[in-house]
């Protein structure tokens, strides 16, 4: 008897790819799905479940389902992708200096003058003469 194609395994691997790429290209744009990547993690869990069912079929009913080898390969690849994602979000993006020397609330803001995007110099003290305050946003930039 011809053994059935084990679609669960491929669906699980596909969903792993979808989860990883949807974070990079979609969910990263929304703070609610970026800061804690809960959508991505749920998708990974669903992918893991699909792979587990697929493996169970491949090894439990080998006479009916294929996938003993492809199941292991796809599962290892999926785990590697999930591992990379976790490494990126739990380790790499937290790798920033503590900035213990940064001025604290209550201290005087260091004075500075920098050119704006039009090249015009902007001095903090001058700006505060005409504004109620200033929010300084330091960001990594696009280089």
């Amino acid at each position, binding site marked *: 008897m011809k053994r059935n194609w084990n679609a669960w395994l491929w669906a699980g691997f596909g969903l792993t790819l979808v989860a990883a790429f949807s974070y990079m290209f979609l969910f990263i744009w929304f703070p609610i799905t970026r800061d804690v990547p809960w959508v991505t993690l749920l998708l990974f869990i669903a992918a893991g479940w699909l792979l587990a069912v697929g493996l169970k079929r491949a090894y439990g009913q080998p006479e009916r389902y294929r996938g003993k080898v492809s199941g292991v390969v796809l599962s290892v690849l999926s785990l590697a992708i999930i591992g990379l994602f976790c490494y990126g979000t739990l380790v790499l993006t*937290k790798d920033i200096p503590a900035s213990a020397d940064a001025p604290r609330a209550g201290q*005087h803001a260091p004075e500075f003058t920098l050119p704006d995007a039009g090249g015009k110099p902007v001095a903090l003290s001058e700006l505060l003469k005409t504004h109620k305050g200033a929010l300084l946003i330091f960001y990594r930039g696009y280089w």
Partner: protein
Amino acid sequence: MAISVDSNEESRKLSASQGYTFPFLSDAKAEVIRQYGVLHAHAGENGRDIARPAEFLVDATGTIRWVNLTDDVRVRARPENALRVIDELTLASAR
């Protein structure tokens, strides 16, 4: 105001694409970034020094009223966070 090591041209592109109307200041040598203690050494392209994400709220007297130093570059102060802090400080000073 937004501050980074980006060039004026890069900042113009960014604010035009996002429709931002607040000033973007270019600190190409990361001098002010160092002054504020928020340097992330060698973290940019080709090991260039850049700023770590950080927000400082300064009042009209030049006093810092609020500081936000994230521990994850993916997690920044959201506009509504900053606006809430500004509202609270305004209310507190009006009392």
